[in-house]
């Protein structure tokens, strides 16, 4: 046997082993938004592949009384926001942000999770509790005194951009309106076939805070010939992973994957309006939780960001391009999570199809919030500094609205700029609506145009 014969794939080692590739070239440091604004964070090279060499593979119990307690040696890696710019820029394929995430989780391992971090991870719980009392909840979370108290007790910054509860969850609205097929547990033969339907992974944001985003997506999908199946689902688990609560995240994955896999195996595509959720399904279950069985792989392979899905339709010539004109300038921010998908900027591609729309890529790396990072008291200022150039650009653009695919980014941008920020699918839906309106009012020319 030669050396070459003996190579095989091993995903369980993929992330830590990728630290092996580091050339120490410092390119990652040139793109890190956090080390750019704070001295507390030494940069991705230091906390990633460099420090990785000093971490034991697993936190093991000491082998003898003389062994040191094998606690995590880290502190500064906690300031990594997980934006992933480093992984993108690295010429040696080191999965830096993923290494950092694992190291952050190790700091937590063996300790009781901080209440705040646990709470920030429990998006389903927080959502379920808040929606029934939405007006009160929203008032409470906007009350400065209460926010000051929350900051004091829990460490969530008093100005952190928290979302607004919807009056009714997406799922309830769908059940009432029967706009989409809200399914039970598994795929069934009565579902519409995969070439006429997609599965929606709506995520916590669309369910509890922004049902209108998902509803816009469902409308756009229907218009393009796709019914929407909304199966049982729970939080994707990303907020739990980002706060080091891997065991909790695994439970979410264990709930979601079988349900979604049943659809994926039948050929359904899984579409999402949250770039964070879809990235979790695509990559993070495998990279962060080491879940790479056949089901998880089927789910990952079937997952699409909504704009990615529409662009794919367009490339097949199947997208309804009956957009009306939108005469506006639209600043667009590509979330760091979207960049991690490696699919380019599909929203900008779609915007290019809308007559009159002047979509401008703000060309900034990260808005700063990075999921739950920027909500934390000790990180809020860092997050705001990271996003500052973006906020300035949007304020200077002085437009009626802006666009961004990630919910947490939208809330951050709105709070910082006062510019209403919409998911691209809402812009698409608006363009369709304008087109319909135009066609209704001027049937002859409009029909000729479509």
């Amino acid at each position: 046997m030669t050396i070459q014969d003996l190579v095989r794939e091993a995903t369980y080692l993929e992330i830590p082993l990728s630290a092996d590739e580091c050339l120490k070239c410092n390119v990652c440091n040139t793109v890190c938004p956090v080390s750019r604004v704070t001295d507390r964070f030494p940069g991705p090279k230091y906390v990633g592949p460099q420090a990785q060499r000093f971490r034991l593979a697993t936190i093991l119990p000491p082998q003898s009384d003389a062994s040191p307690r094998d606690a995590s040696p880290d502190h500064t890696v906690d300031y990594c926001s997980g934006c992933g710019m480093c992984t993108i820029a690295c010429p040696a394929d080191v999965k830096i942000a993923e290494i950092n995430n694992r190291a952050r989780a190790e700091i937590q391992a063996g300790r009781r999770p901080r209440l705040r971090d646990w709470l920030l991870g429990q998006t389903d719980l927080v959502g379920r509790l808040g929606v029934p009392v939405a007006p009160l909840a929203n008032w409470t979370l906007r009350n400065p005194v209460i926010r000051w108290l929350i900051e004091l007790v829990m460490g969530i910054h008093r100005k952190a951009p928290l979302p607004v509860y919807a009056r009714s969850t997406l799922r309830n609205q769908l059940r009432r309106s029967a706009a989409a097929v809200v399914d039970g547990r598994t795929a069934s033969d009565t579902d519409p076939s995969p070439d006429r339907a997609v599965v929606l992974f709506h995520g916590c944001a669309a369910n509890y805070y922004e049902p209108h985003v998902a509803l816009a997506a469902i409308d756009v999908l229907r218009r393009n010939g796709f019914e929407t199946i909304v199966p049982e689902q729970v939080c994707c688990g990303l907020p739990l992973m980002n706060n080091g609560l891997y065991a909790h995240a695994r439970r979410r994955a264990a709930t979601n994957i079988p349900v979604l896999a049943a659809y994926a195996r039948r050929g359904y595509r899984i579409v999402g309006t949250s770039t964070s959720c879809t990235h979790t399904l695509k990559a993070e279950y495998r990279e962060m939780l080491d879940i790479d069985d056949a089901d998880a792989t089927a789910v990952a392979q079937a997952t699409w960001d909504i704009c990615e899905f529409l662009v794919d339709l367009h490339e097949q010539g199947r997208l309804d391009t009956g957009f009306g004109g939108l005469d506006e300038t639209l600043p667009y921010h590509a979330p760091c999570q979207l960049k991690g998908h490696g699919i380019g900027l599909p929203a900008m591609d779609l915007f290019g199809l809308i007559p009159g729309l002047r979509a401008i890529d703000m060309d900034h790396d990260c808005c700063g919030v990075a999921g739950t990072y920027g909500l934390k008291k000790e990180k809020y200022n860092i997050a705001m500094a990271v996003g500052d150039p973006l906020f300035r650009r949007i304020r200077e653009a002085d437009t009626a609205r802006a666009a961004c695919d990630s919910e947490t980014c939208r809330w951050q941008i709105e709070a910082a700029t006062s510019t209403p920020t919409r998911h691209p699918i809402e812009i698409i839906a608006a363009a369709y609506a304008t087109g319909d309106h135009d066609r209704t009012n001027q049937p002859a020319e409009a029909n000729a145009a479509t």
Partner: protein
Amino acid sequence: MRAAEAVDVLIIGGGATGAGLVRDFARRGLRCLLVDKGDLGSGTSGRHHGLLHSGGRYVAKDPLAARECIDENLVLRRIAPACVEDTGGYFVVTPDDPDEYADGFEAACRASGVPCEEVAVAALLRREPALNPHIRRAFRVPDGALEPWQLIDATVSDARARGSDIRPYQRAVAMKVTAGGRIVSVDLADERSGSMTRVAPRFVVSAAGAWAGRVAALAGARLAMAPGKGTMLIFNQRMTDSVINRCHRPGDGDIMVPVHEVAILGTTEITVDDPDVYGIDRNEVEALMVEGTKLFPDLPRMRLLRAYAGVRPLYRDDEGATAGDDGREISRAHLIIDHEARDGVGNFVSIVGGKITTHRLMAEQTADVVCQKLGETARCTTADEVLPNQGDGRTYWLGHRLAEHEDDGGGDAELICECEMLTRDRLERFLDARWPCSLDDVRRGTRLGMGPCQGAFCTFRAAAVVAERAGGAEPLPAADVDRVLLDFLDERFRGTRPIAWGRQLQELWITAGIYGGILGAESLAPEAVRGDG
């Protein structure tokens, strides 16, 4: 030359055994001088596999050696905990290994006093997921990793505190032996300055290891050594946190040892003529890789950082039994050679063979022989007391450098060698204690340049610190700084050359870009380094 310095014992050879000897004698009240032609630990001790043997490797063929190993293993954990990483070890049975060996293994361990217990393969694979999943059986033993330079440094510190003198870079070049068979003086040449010193010892002990033959020749004694080269491969990452051994009759490439932040696969056995002259060729590397892959199937994907070799101090016995190409048949247990009867030199003893795990015992036994001949009655106490500089008494923790730096606030400002988290402060303290020295000496004491970049980013920074710190009142001449820089880059290159492919080849090219493209190294020492023309 000045008048000869009188000492009780002159110890030639500053590896682990020589260090153990000077400590042992010093604790018995003797005044000693320890010399080495290079830096302490720059010979075989500094090129060992990194393994603190449990003895499991020897239980089948050399039970005495196995017992010595386990006894000393426990002693070193007690007296030098900061130099020992308690990795634990496993002997694993791969599909290529015979059942018979495994069947007798546990019993053989017990017979030699080596703690051994069979463990469930599934449990071991969970702990060490990079291992070959087709392993059939696994046995746990108390192997560990042993850091040689900290060990030697701490050992000689004890001796120094008791009045002994430690001088690296002194090569023994001549001995005056009387007609009555006594060494009355030994001439030492300073390898750096060329100046000569004369020492008048009551006794001479050679712990020169693979070089023992040369030292013996100075006294007119004959000592045929069969230096056994062993090549090791350093992997950039610890794919295992435990020592992993093949459970079979000892052979090449059958041990993987986690050592600090790397993992070292070894080793081979090839007799060489000259312990200073040997290379590492592709075949050796390939052969090691093939064996190592049987333990870790993903090994070919993992980044090779460096290749190095050490020479075992194997002794060819009087009957002329040769080592041949498989020197493994020679006992690795040590041998004290009393040159009185053998060669007619009454105050000269050589200690050969052995391994770093048993260095303290080797020193004890040798010191007993010497003291008896000298009429000194003090007994050995080296196992009784913890060495200096062992910190809080806990064993080595991989994370300690990172943790210490992080506890201090972290950050890159103070890190001269970022790969190894070496701070400016630590480097300056080393230079203050040890200058004049090369960056390779610095490397042994601080781990400078031992990470993935192999000196690309830290060499010039370290050279600048040397330039600022080492000169003292006068700034260090620029030409000296040049040599410090270029010599270290060259030394780092030599270990990369045998494995120059993949990422490490890329790293080498980046290094050339830095020193050639950006820093203009070719302009520094024009006679040594010249651009194209």
